[in-house]
């Protein structure tokens, strides 16, 4: 790990060098009244004034729909074509917030515990994450309550902290980060000794994870689930904007004798998610599905995978049509 300084024009030149290297760059772009990760070519396309992108960056390593393999039926036989890791392009994720970058660890934990997932690993391998530490936050943000912070470097290959002169402290954290710097090393200067902490938003923790965990261990039969979920309308918005939600469906796309098996996003909040063919549904009520969502993130994942399934990005709260505010709900569980 090495810390450097890069000035404002250096940033632009470096970005152009990355762009010219042929790597795809996804960065937050402001369009249609929202800010979201989109392909960009120049630094001036990147959104400036905003707190959070609507969607997390997870789609870059875990696409909304992806072909697991394809097949062709020929004379009663079936030929399979495996997913090709080489088909994945080198990608740079630019201006990722620490809460988003922190999401790669739980995401990878879900996909790689016990057996490994070739697809997400192919994406992760070819992805370089350039994160920006956070100078601003809003009332939905709570990274500091879930082991994160506005300057957390987990999941980042390089973290930039933008200084008042428009330049940045560049923390080069991994070999991938170094490789990205190597595209234009000349623009990186020696560390000037700027204090990173000075540029980070102050976000006091709202609850203690240990306390929540202890409460949740005894909360399965609590009435809290019904109380909190009454207004939940059972859509998948919270899951789909979440940086760590990974539930998926496997579907078939068939055209004549050819076809593809597809993995696509799914959500535990959907009524039919766990429905058996017989019609029996173990999570029949919205309250049970809400409980699954919270327990999975804050109890099951910490216990089974040693990671918390929440990075405190607050996207679910912002996206929810009926204001299911996760911070408020978790805080109230912690205070019970």
């Amino acid at each position, binding site marked *: 790990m090495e810390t450097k300084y890069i000035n404002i024009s250096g940033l632009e030149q470096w970005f152009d060098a990355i762009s010219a290297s042929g790597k795809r760059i996804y960065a937050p772009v402001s369009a249609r009244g929202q800010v979201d990760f989109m392909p960009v070519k120049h630094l001036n396309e990147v959104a400036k004034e905003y707190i959070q992108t609507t969607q997390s960056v997870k789609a870059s390593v875990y696409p909304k729909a992806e072909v*697991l*393999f394809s*097949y062709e*039926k020929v004379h*009663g*036989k*079936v030929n*399979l074509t*495996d*997913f090709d*890791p080489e088909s994945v392009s080198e990608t740079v994720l630019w201006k990722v917030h620490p809460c988003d970058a922190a999401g790669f660890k739980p995401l990878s934990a*879900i*996909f790689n*515990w*016990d*057996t*490994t*997932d*070739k*697809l997400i*690993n192919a994406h992760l391998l070819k992805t370089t994450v350039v994160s920006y530490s956070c100078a601003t936050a809003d009332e939905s943000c709570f990274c500091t309550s879930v082991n994160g912070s506005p300057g957390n470097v987990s999941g980042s290959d390089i973290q930039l902290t933008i200084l008042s002169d428009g330049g940045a402290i560049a923390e080069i954290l991994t070999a991938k980060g170094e490789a990205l710097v190597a595209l234009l090393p000349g623009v990186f200067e020696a560390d000037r000794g700027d204090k990173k902490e000075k540029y980070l938003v102050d976000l006091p923790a709202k609850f203690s994870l240990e306390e929540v965990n202890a409460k949740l261990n005894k909360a*399965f*039969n609590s009435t809290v689930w019904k109380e909190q979920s009454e207004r939940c309308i059972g859509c998948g918005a919270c899951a789909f904007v979440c940086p760590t939600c*990974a*539930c*998926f*469906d*496997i*579907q*078939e796309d*068939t055209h004549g004798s050819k*076809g593809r*098996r597809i*993995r696509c996003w*799914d959500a*535990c909040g959907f009524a039919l*998610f*766990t*429905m*058996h*063919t*017989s019609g*029996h549904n*173990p*999570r029949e009520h919205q309250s*049970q599905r809400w409980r*699954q969502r919270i*327990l*999975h993130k804050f*109890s*099951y994942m910490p*216990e*089974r995978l040693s990671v918390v399934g929440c990075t405190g990005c607050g996207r679910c709260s912002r996206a929810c049509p009926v204001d299911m505010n996760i911070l408020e709900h978790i805080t109230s569980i912690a205070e019970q």
Partner: protein
Amino acid sequence: MSEKNIYLPYLMTIDKVTKEAPGVKTYRLKFQDEAEAAAFDFKAGQFGEYSAFGEGESTFCIASSPTRKGYIECTFRDTGRVTSGLASLEEGSTMGFRGPYGNVFPMDEWKGKSLVFIAGGIALPPMRCVIWNALDLRENFKDITIVYGAKSVNDLVYKSELKEWTDRPDVKMVTTVDPGGETADWKGEIGFVPAIVEKVAPSSENTIAIVCGPPIMIKYTFPVLEKLGFKDDQIYTTLENRMKCGVGKCGRCNVGKLYICKDGPVFSREELNLIPAEEY
């Protein structure tokens, strides 16, 4: 070596089709790739994801015994998109299989004990795997009792094997059908499975009871077993939640913190007591 794609199925040839009951078929499957066949191994209780190319995947147990090498069998009812796609395949066609997944019945620990198998309807297949496994290693176990019931005579699966088990002197086989489901020449019992278990009254002494069936049957059979003196660690069952991946990632089969696909499908009643019953 490049990373294995866990979603890529083995290609299997349907070697033999057996019609078991209305809408219920058993397929014997052989690996198309010899190396895959040689490397493949499983234990009683495990399941897999079976695919009909063009329709998708469906989850069932491996219904054949691991003692029978060279093939696997699955038994399924034609109920949805995938199972009807599978049902329309013929002998010689290709289908997909991923597995084996999940945990196993602890048959090694059961050595020297008596076994009581209690099954209802289409839940005999997971049990059949264990039954044949036990019968093929008959000397390892003491008494073997099988109580199997279905809605009607027509709905009983593995009819020829039921006969074979009935004819064996070293197996106590009791077959029953629900009242009204009998035929004129029906020689078995008439009544619901829990009542028949109570009537047969197997001894709980040094015995393991394996119960598979619809939730309602399990619900009423457990108290009967309790009355007969079976402790919770003497009773085993399998859970079947909806699954897509089979490898603990897709998020469907959680019961509390457990994944049915990884920590199950086999559970002792002792283990079941620790997880929320409403989620299965």
